[in-house]
């Protein structure tokens, strides 16, 4: 495969390093939220902090920074890196891509500031106000244009499966974003909630999932040194995800004020999502066949395989909790918080960690500074996340059943809140471990750039392959 050009290198590094910064900031806010569950007066030191770091204001800042600062910037960097590799064509308009990276950072800062000031549309994952939405859509459209133009001018005749997933995601994301951020601006009531949840679910399904799966298909053969198990299976996966995922929005209002036909229209495709998920996992296990021992040698491979398994668990859990009866217990509880974190942290952040460790040597010309710290990153992330996940799931089940016993408001509701305190503490501890893991990650990346061992000429030629 082609060596990365100087311009591409500059663009990808801008996106990658920015995303790591946003990862740390977003998770800091997450940690503040977790501590506020245990100690509601945390950071209520003076009116300024109390007001601008109030729970209701920083919670959307937490999700927004991690979705669009960390994951999406890292995704864009990954696309700008992988697409030239797979097309054997240097990136089109690298200067424009670089400008988009800078403007993207400005967007995240502006979103953070306005959300803390209390300007919000209240539509989940689309909280920033419309001028910021328009600004962001232009950036996304610009990034999509660069990627498509590069693919259209490719020198490689075969279209590797990752490119299918990337192209689909880049078509869907701008439309999704417009429906969630602009269309919702003009409508009221339940239809607004449906448009909002169409966006809220599909930004996960048709952007974070599909690009992430593209990354898995790119990384797995390289890291396991086995060819991809089945090209056909991956294409079946692509078209089934494109068919079923879009219908998932209404299950967010399951049992709620929507017509019965719409609940069915939302749940049946949710259940059918098992098909695309299973194709990915069948491919992962097929590709790993005979190469499982490599997991002990390669931290990036560990991250990819673990991420893929979390993706499977998320998508077994998701259809289950979208069904009417489980939803009647689990909806609105902590369970859902655990579920959301599994997709975005356990699955796709893990895939990104693998991508970063895999690509950094070819970007910087240096090896990763410390193998031991990579392992620390992996274990702190996974142990912290498992503590977080199991406490939220257990707490969610407890909450759901307590509510069915009538503890729905006032003092009885409060009893449930108080009984969940040990879980809130465990959840914060899990969060601290996850956060320390990311500090280790950021430190290791920082040291690799400066002090990593230089790659030999031979390693340089293979590192991009």
């Amino acid at each position, binding site marked *: 495969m082609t060596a990365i050009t100087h311009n591409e290198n500059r663009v990808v590094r801008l996106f990658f390093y920015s995303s790591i910064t946003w990862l740390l900031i977003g998770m800091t806010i997450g940690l503040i939220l977790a501590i506020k569950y245990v100690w509601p007066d945390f950071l209520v030191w003076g009116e300024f902090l109390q007001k601008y770091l109030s729970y209701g204001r920083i919670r959307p800042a937490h999700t927004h920074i991690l979705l669009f600062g960390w994951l999406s910037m890292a995704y864009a960097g990954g696309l700008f890196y992988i697409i030239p590799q797979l097309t054997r064509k240097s990136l089109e308009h690298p200067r424009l891509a670089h400008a988009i990276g800078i403007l993207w950072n400005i967007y995240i800062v502006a979103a953070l500031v306005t959300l803390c000031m209390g300007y919000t549309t209240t539509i989940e994952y689309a909280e920033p106000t419309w001028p910021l939405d328009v600004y962001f859509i232009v950036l996304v459209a610009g990034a999509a244009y660069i990627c498509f133009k590069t693919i259209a001018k490719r020198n490689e005749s075969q279209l590797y499966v990752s490119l299918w997933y990337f192209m689909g995601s880049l078509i*869907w994301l701008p439309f999704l974003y417009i429906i969630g951020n602009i269309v919702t601006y003009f409508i*009221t009531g339940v239809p607004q*909630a449906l448009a909002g949840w*169409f966006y809220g679910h599909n930004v996960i399904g048709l952007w974070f999932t599909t690009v992430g799966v593209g990354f898995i298909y790119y990384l797995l053969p390289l890291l396991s040194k086995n060819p991809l198990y089945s090209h056909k299976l991956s294409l079946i996966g692509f078209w089934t995800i494109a068919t079923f995922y*879009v219908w998932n929005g209404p299950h967010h209002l399951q049992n709620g004020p929507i017509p019965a036909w*719409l609940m069915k229209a939302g749940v049946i495709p949710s259940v059918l999502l098992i098909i695309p998920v299973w194709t990915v996992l069948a491919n992962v296990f097929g590709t790993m066949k005979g190469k499982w021992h490599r997991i002990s040698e390669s931290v990036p491979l560990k991250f990819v395989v673990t991420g893929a398994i979390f993706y499977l668990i998320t998508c077994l859990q998701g259809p289950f909790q979208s069904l009417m009866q489980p939803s009647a217990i689990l909806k609105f509880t902590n369970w859902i918080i655990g579920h959301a974190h599994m997709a975005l942290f356990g699955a796709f952040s893990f895939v990104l960690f693998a991508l970063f460790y895999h690509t950094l040597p070819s970007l910087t010309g240096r090896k990763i500074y410390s193998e031991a710290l990579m392992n620390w990153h992996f274990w702190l992330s996974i142990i912290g996340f498992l503590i977080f996940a199991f406490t939220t799931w257990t707490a969610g089940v407890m909450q759901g059943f307590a509510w069915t016993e009538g503890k729905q408001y*006032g003092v009885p509701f409060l009893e449930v809140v108080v009984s969940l305190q040990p879980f809130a503490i465990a959840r914060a501890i899990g969060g601290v471990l996850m956060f320390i893991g990311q500090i280790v990650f950021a430190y290791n990346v920082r040291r690799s750039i400066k002090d990593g061992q230089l790659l030999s000429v031979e390693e340089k030629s293979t590192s991009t392959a």
Partner: protein
Amino acid sequence: MSGQSKERFMKPFIIGASLLFFIGVTATVVLPFYDEVMQRENANAKIKNYAIDSPEYRGRQVYIREGCHVCHTQFVRPVKADSSLGPVSVPEDYRHDYPHMLGTVRTGSDLTWVGTRWNEQWHRVHLNNPRQVFPGSTMPRYDYLSDQDTEDLIAYLMSLKPAPSTEGR
């Protein structure tokens, strides 16, 4: 591969991916919008159709600004977990809600009909320091709100009552 055959490949792909997307949009966003239950209003929707610059309207803006919807839902489902919350929500109730306040998580309790539960003075104490009435509550203190904001917010919360005609739903 020639340029032409590349083009041939990309066009069906783009059309197919877009088509599947827009079928889903039509089914789950456009059709519900035109469903007649979404277009009707009822007595509850009229109550919640606050005049701009009424205390309730301003209070709702405070509710949004402070992110109350992040922890409190506003919809009652016909399920056991919502059995004592009051009349079950229907689409017509929300006809004029902009933005909607349905919510996603019940970190705090559901507020659909909170106006039936407490009085103004209770809210004043509770907003100022939730732990004064509910020891162990994790809700933030809203003692930093101006008096005007607090009173508007209370007016909004007190307005969240079912219309008599929908009482036994």
